[in-house]
């Protein structure tokens, strides 16, 4: 018997001869992991020792025009698979292999990990705007080196991938998005119920245990599964299933919602807002108005205010909606906030993808231009870097926002349906439906406004 949170076992991709063999082989995920590390080293070299202008830097183009826009798409289709091949994780594993003390992850990280991730995510976005991480290759290099130092320290002293699980800001983002992703790995309950070995968690001579501290036997979320297939390699009972599920499926049945995760989804919405707003032609007048209002031209001050407001808007909207919903379902505001915060994830993802689609499609050729420049070929100075016209990109952006809106709306409905009796269902759902409409309209409005950086 399968539970509500599982998709039927007949879809198990591991039963496919080729996929199963590949994922269980010793080459997986190394065959993808090592080339990724190699590309990362090229990126690091370019960022730190290559052209000082982002305009000419291949590392900048690969990181911010290709990787960053592609990563949310990857989360949607492959869950947290990126984390299996992430170069930082590879560095963690290497350091651990040679000098690792393998101490248990600190308790405070286990307890406050997601809050730390929330704070880091906010800080990194803020610092990018104030110090210019993206527009300055060395700034991007410093970010990468900081992460490298984090994983080196983590790999040197702590077991498994402590950094990836409890500290990495991208890991937090990917964890949230992977919940809405279409790939799921789980144990088969009937088989796992009789298992006392826990090889999937502990590891065997075939492979290490789960690097992200998950136990497939009890796992109900894809947030911390990177599809590395170590569990599949280790399981003596062939219990592991990798299945394809509808997007956002997991969000409909969150068993133990956490405030910090719901909070992160609202924060991401705010960050998407601020990313869009700062690209608008209306941004300089807003900035000037703020400068006059607060009496300083310090960008750190004015941006911090704008950033804070952008983050507070979705958090307060979710809070207000939860307060209204609480009137209907007689549960606390916090319970509603925590439970329905997850519904925002789909729209978060859509907004994130839509925003980055612009960079990928309007500036995609810059990867080619800067790549050729690496080999001394000067091209593209007067050529457009666009892969598609602005109108086509905008159409795709609206399409994505539309899908994200429908996904979030439906997720809110499913969460209400899974948690409340029919007489409370519509009263609980209605305020969240209004919230999704408002957030959807806000997103569409931001993409309608002319953007200063459109080419």
């Amino acid at each position: 018997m399968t539970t509500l949170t599982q998709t039927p076992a007949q879809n198990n991709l591991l039963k496919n001869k080729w996929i199963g063999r590949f994922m269980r082989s010793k080459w997986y995920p190394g065959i993808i992991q090592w080339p990724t590390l190699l590309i990362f080293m090229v990126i690091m070299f370019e960022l730190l020792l290559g052209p000082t202008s982002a305009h000419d830097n291949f590392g900048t183009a690969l990181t911010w025009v290709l990787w960053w826009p592609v990563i949310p798409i990857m989360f949607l289709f492959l869950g947290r698979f990126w984390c299996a091949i992430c170069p930082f994780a590879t560095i963690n594993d290497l350091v651990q292999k040679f000098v690792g003390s393998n101490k248990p992850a600190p308790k405070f990280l286990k307890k406050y990990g997601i809050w730390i991730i929330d704070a880091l995510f906010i800080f990194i976005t803020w610092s990018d705007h104030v110090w210019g991480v993206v527009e300055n290759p060395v700034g991007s290099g410093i970010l990468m080196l900081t992460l490298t130092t984090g994983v080196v320290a983590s790999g040197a002293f702590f077991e498994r991938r402590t950094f990836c699980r409890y500290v990495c800001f991208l890991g937090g983002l990917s964890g949230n998005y992977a919940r809405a992703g279409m790939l799921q790995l789980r144990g088969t309950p009937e088989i796992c119920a009789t298992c006392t070995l826990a090889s999937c968690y502990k590891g065997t001579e075939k492979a290490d245990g789960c690097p992200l501290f998950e136990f497939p036997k009890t796992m109900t979320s894809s947030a911390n599964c990177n599809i590395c297939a170590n569990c599949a390699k280790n399981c003596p009972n062939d219990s592991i299933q990798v299945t394809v599920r509808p997007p956002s499926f997991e969000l409909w049945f969150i068993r133990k919602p956490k405030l910090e995760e719901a909070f992160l989804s609202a924060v991401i919405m705010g960050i998407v807002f601020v990313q869009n707003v700062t690209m608008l032609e209306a941004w300089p007048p807003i900035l000037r108005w703020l400068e006059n209002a607060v009496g300083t031209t310090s960008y750190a001050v004015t941006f911090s205010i704008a950033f804070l407001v952008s983050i507070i808007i979705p958090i307060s909207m979710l809070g207000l909606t939860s307060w209204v919903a609480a009137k209907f379902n007689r549960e606390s505001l916090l319970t509603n906030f925590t439970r329905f915060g997850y519904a925002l994830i789909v729209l978060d993802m859509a907004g994130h993808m839509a925003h980055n689609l612009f960079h990928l499609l309007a500036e995609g050729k810059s990867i080619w231009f800067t790549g050729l420049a690496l080999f001394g070929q000067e091209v593209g100075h007067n050529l457009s870097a666009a892969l598609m016209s602005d109108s086509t990109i905008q159409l795709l952006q609206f399409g994505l926002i539309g899908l994200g809106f429908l996904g979030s709306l439906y997720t809110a409905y499913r969460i209400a349906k899974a948690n409340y009796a029919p007489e409370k269902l519509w009263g609980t759902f209605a305020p969240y439906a209004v919230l999704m409409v408002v957030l959807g309209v806000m997103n569409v409005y931001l993409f309608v406004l002319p953007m200063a950086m459109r080419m």
Partner: protein
Amino acid sequence: MKRSLTTILLLFTAILMAAFIFPTPALADGGEGGLSFSQTIGGYTITLVFEKPASIGENPVHVKIVDAAGMPVPGAEVEISVEEHSEAEESAEGEMDEMEAKPTEAESSPSTSMHGMEENPAATPTPGTMSSINSISPVSDEHDEMAALEPGHEEGEYEGELAIEKDGDLAVLVHITVQGELLEAEFPLEVAKSNAGSIVLSVFAAINAGILAVAFVMKSKIGKA
């Protein structure tokens, strides 16, 4: 065996640190002090002064304008930008082509030009504005943006900041509007390659080497225990 391993590791760490700690020396343009360039166009002498050697980032600059009689020229609109040298030449050539069709009083070097009441679509960058983590535009033509200078403390002096984003052979373009006339001067500028990347790399290499050394010692102790 363990001792020799420690020696090898420490030696490797020392070599790594040395390689990063002694990077290619920085070549500051113009030596210790600032830089000063002068050019005469249409009877006006334009002097561009960098307070410090030009480098990547914000550079405080002054522009002094004096007329043919040596008197300072107040009330001018002064804008400044920086371009790659080749781009600046192309741009100047284009402007020279335009000038051929117009009567002009241009003098001085071929890379300078003077236009009559020509409208210049200057854009003043917002101070501190930076692209977001998702907002990189590596192929944007940012050289088109010109920063306006404000009147300085002395008459005929204008000051502000010039943002330089890349090293190499560049050209500083100064657009001055005096009594309805647009004067354009171009000053060649060589910005030495920044060694910021090497410094950053060395600092992080040292930190990471330290972490690895501590971890190695800890692991050895655990092994002995």
